[in-house]
């Protein structure tokens, strides 16, 4: 790349005439104008213990920028602007930070709540919503300025405190959906008029919803329940039908096993007409048919699944596990519902992110202080990138996917 710039500046040097006095500023200007770069192969990796993020590129598999000063990033996540230029990082301390992926710097940062858990970006990319554990509720910000646009406190019957909010996702037609952990409700927020958020509340969805997902087409919202066997599903094409219980009693009355890390539904997998979900308190992955919402299979897993992620083509699921079995990834063939590969990347595998077409997967291994890049066909390790306690990995292709 440098050679190309050199040649171009040499050319300009020549064109600028032979006067040395004139040639110097022209050459300098050419030097300062590097080849433009696109953002389609960029990503952001959270270094949870040091409040730092790394900007990486997945073509040469290198780190481009290291950005400090993002606060408490335990349990942090990120969404992207629709031009894939900016990331919005949601930190544990309520920090919302806008990061420039190209310039590798913080553009904007607000501390919006006491204790936040995640966020979403609206369909049109103009609003960023953050869900809070403390004081509870959801706040919505202008994506350009991070100015507060709407505050939606999660007040509920029978409590003077607000509920923790979980499972916040964006939905078509400028909506957001989230659930209330303490109240057992799902709320649908229409932000068509940012000055007047229209909230529809669905009550009694089940006990302790702990996370939620929305299908790739933005039609079905599913909340996982901790306090009950089953999940709660809302069809956004027919919200008047309310929230329905699906996979009720999947534990068949057995006493649940302890859960050492809560499963995440953000990494839910849809493949072969089925949705694959981590059971909670069972060492199983549940397969449910979309449409009928009947259970159509389950896979015995190594331990409590945390992320169940479909390779983008849908053929394989990559699954990681909770403490103390978190040194393992299992790869499951969707066609046969059987484990085809067991990997031991190292202690505390926290997250996995596929490149947009799924040829590689990046895996964060916290206690190895390393991110590993695997070839998803050969399972060969292609690269090792040293990082400090890496956790979430987020690639810019998420910008164009509902719910991510």
């Amino acid at each position, binding site marked *: 790349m440098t050679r190309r710039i050199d040649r171009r500046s040499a050319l300009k040097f020549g064109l600028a005439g032979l006067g040395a006095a004139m040639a110097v500023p022209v050459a300098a200007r050419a030097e300062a104008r590097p080849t433009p770069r696109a953002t389609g192969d960029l990503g952001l990796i959270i270094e*949870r*213990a040091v409040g730092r993020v790394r900007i990486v590129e997945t073509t040469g598999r290198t780190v481009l920028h290291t950005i400090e000063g993002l606060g*408490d990033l*335990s*349990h942090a996540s990120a969404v992207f602007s629709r031009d894939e230029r900016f990331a919005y990082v949601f930190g*544990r*301390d309520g920090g919302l930070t806008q990061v420039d992926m190209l310039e590798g710097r913080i553009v904007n940062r607000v501390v919006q709540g006491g*204790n936040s*858990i995640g966020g979403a970006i609206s369909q049109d990319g103009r609003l960023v919503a953050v869900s809070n*554990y*403390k004081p509870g509720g959801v706040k919505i910000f202008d994506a350009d300025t991070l100015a507060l646009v709407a505050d939606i406190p999660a007040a509920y019957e029978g409590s003077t405190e607000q509920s*923790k909010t979980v499972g916040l996702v964006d939905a078509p037609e400028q909506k957001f959906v989230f659930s209330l*952990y303490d109240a057992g409700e799902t709320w649908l927020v229409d932000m068509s008029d940012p000055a007047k958020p229209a909230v529809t509340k669905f009550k009694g969805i089940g006990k*302790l919803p*702990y996370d939620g997902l929305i299908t790739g087409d933005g039609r079905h919202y599913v909340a996982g329940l*901790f*306090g009950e066997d089953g999940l709660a599903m809302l069809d956004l094409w027919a919200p008047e039908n309310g929230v329905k219980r699906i996979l009720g009693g999947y534990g068949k009355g057995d006493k649940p096993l*302890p*859960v*050492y*890390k*809560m499963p995440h539904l953000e990494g839910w997998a849809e493949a072969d007409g089925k949705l694959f979900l981590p059971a909670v308190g069972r060492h199983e992955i549940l397969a449910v048919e979309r449409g009928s919402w009947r259970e159509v299979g389950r896979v015995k897993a190594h331990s409590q699944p945390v992320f169940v992620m479909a390779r983008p083509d849908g053929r394989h699921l990559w699954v990681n596990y909770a*403490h*103390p079995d978190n*040194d393992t990834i299992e790869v499951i063939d969707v066609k046969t519902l059987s484990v085809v590969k067991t990997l*031991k990347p*190292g*202690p*505390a595998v926290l997250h996995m992110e596929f490149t947009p077409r799924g040829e590689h997967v990046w895996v964060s291994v*916290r*206690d*190895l*202080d390393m991110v590993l890049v695997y070839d998803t066909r050969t399972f060969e390790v292609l690269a090792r990138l040293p990082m400090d*306690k890496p956790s979430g990995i987020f690639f810019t292709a998420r910008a164009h996917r509902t719910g991510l």
Partner: protein
Amino acid sequence: MFDWSRTSPPLLTLAALLIAPAAFAAGDPPEERQKVLLYRLIQDCGSCHGMTLKGGLGPALLPETLKDKADESLTDIILNGIEGTPMPPWAFETSASEAAWLVRVLKKGAVHDATH
């Protein structure tokens, strides 16, 4: 299975910084074990209680939030969990005296101070 908790050197780097405030006294776990317990407290308890223990899905585990609660009942919660909630039992990898030590560390705010 390979026991990473005992062998991985990076695992101990952060915990090593935290060891000082948790003064060694009679009945405390051996120093090496304290490092493992503190690392787990920050990283794994931290996944629900926050890495700074200021709360997450689970409540804050800070001196001011714990001060009115009996040591014995907090120790019991760590060992046996709270049924019907996400708080899991840790007895499978924590002894009663280790859990009691964790409660003392939490109530002193020793972990919290050291992370700042």
